[in-house]
């Protein structure tokens, strides 16, 4: 009989294959449709590393998405080269985001619960304001990239797909590693984890840096794709979008972000044309329901269902 682990493996492989096939057989518009989904998916996996695994709710994760995007745009504008693909710069964007996570995380990860959430939100807003005042980064206008790169959905899709593949491999590695075990222990009881020999400060920081790395790369790719980077990249909506997708699916799991992001995307897509803001209301309500009644998300429901089936 099929169990949750098999279901996870099948879904992940199935999705990776389908999303790759679309690149070859899909129309331009279908590729563009899936591209935004891939972006949301990676971001959901990204925030899952820090929030899903350690329980530290990051309301400002978009800061790393923005830093990645700005770094990439800055490099494209200032390093005038046609010999390398601009997507290489998005990798550097990820590294710079990871470096900032190190700086931000060291003090902020000492806070817990709501204080951590508020601090991350504040940091993200602060960085947004700082960036909009730096003229080398285009101020509040941002950095247009149309002179340097052209709108190319196919290349962006490939870059995004490869990033998704890396992110999923990373998620699977973490969940099977001693590192992942330590993170789970931190989520369950940080003091007990510390007394059991886990270097909780280091583990939390490592999780934060890894999640920032992924978010930074995605930010860079998106910047290239939309040939424009602005302070919109730091918007709290983006952080919330990642959080809701992850929590909807099931935080701390491998299947969760996949289910959650797809569901979020489908709901948003169906509503956005006729009611541009209705999905926000719906997701607000869904978020409250999840937090109150199904903290394990949809994967939790599936898990329970499997247990009932086994008992019969």
């Amino acid at each position, binding site marked *: 009989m099929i169990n949750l682990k098999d279901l996870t493996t099948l879904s992940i492989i199935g999705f990776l294959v389908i999303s790759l096939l679309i690149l070859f057989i899909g129309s331009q518009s279908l590729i563009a449709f899936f591209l935004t989904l891939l972006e949301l998916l990676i971001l959901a996996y990204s925030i899952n590393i820090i929030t899903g695994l350690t329980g530290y709710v990051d309301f400002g994760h978009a800061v790393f998405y923005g830093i990645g995007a700005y770094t990439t745009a800055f490099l494209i504008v200032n390093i005038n080269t046609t010999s390398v693909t601009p997507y290489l710069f998005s990798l550097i964007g990820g590294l710079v985001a990871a470096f900032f996570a190190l700086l931000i995380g060291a003090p902020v990860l000492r806070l817990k619960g709501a204080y951590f959430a508020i601090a991350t939100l504040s940091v993200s807003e602060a960085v947004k304001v700082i960036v909009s005042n730096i003229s080398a980064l285009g101020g509040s206008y941002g950095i247009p990239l149309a002179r340097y790169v052209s709108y190319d959905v196919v290349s962006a899709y490939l870059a995004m797909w490869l990033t998704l593949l890396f992110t999923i491999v990373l998620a699977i590695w973490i969940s099977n590693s*001693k590192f992942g*075990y330590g993170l789970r222990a931190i989520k369950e*009881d940080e003091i*007990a984890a510390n007394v*059991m020999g886990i*270097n909780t400060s280091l583990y939390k920081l490592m999780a934060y840096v890894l999640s920032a790395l992924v978010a930074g790369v995605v930010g860079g790719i998106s910047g290239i794709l939309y040939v424009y980077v602005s302070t919109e990249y730091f918007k709290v909506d983006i952080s919330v979008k990642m959080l809701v997708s992850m929590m909807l699916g099931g935080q701390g799991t491998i299947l969760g972000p996949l289910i959650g992001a797809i569901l979020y995307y489908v709901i948003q897509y169906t509503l956005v044309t006729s009611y541009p803001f209705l999905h926000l209301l719906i997701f607000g309500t869904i978020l409250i329901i999840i937090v109150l009644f199904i903290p394990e998300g949809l994967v939790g429901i599936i898990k329970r269902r499997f247990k009932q089936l086994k008992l019969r």
Partner: protein
Amino acid sequence: MILEAKGIIKRFGGIVALNKVDVSVAEDEILGIIGPNGSGKTTFFNVISGVYKPDEGSVIFMGKNITGRPPHIIAKMGIARTFQVVRPFPSMTVRENILIGAYFSGKHKSSSYIDILVDKILKLTELSSKADLPAKALNLPEKRRLEIARALALEPKLLLLDETLAGLTPAEIDHALEMIKKAKSEMGLTIIIVEHIMRAIMKISDRIIVFSNGIKIAEGTPSQVASDIKVIEAYLGKPIQGEG
């Protein structure tokens, strides 16, 4: 001496939770610590295990100064503890809870060694039949045993037991004491045990230290301590002085 704490002072704002406390423990000993509520017993454990940094004083463990070191380092050096309020990792299984200790004890171990260790501890703490249940499904005596099991998985030299017997029935207490003695001899432990249940602590301890208001007021064998006037005063209050 395996552990020597000298002149430990720990303040919380204006309250002095520990006031110049000296405690030393010999290898292979069971040291009991008793005292009324709020006398500083748990604070003392928190200082030893690194959860709190003492304001003054030093803690020497096996010849090394561990004062103010972080908890995970102290755990790896060989001091394990349980918590007064049980705090196993609730959604992990019993086996996973124990595995955490084995994984993070800082000792390089093969997976076959870890499997044997975990099975041995499960058997010792009589949790083998519950190994694959999530910790939150256990009842209180089982959770308390799991706390001990998890600490044992670190393969410590020194085990700090913080009111592991609280809430147990007399029969369960006797059983738990046997289990602690067995664990001690099988794993070569030195133990400090904080407990309110007099009958139990008098029975198991080689030596007893009494805390009151953050001060060590008595020290000696169980019978010496039980007849100490200061100890009786701390627990029952002073007799009323008559006018003659």
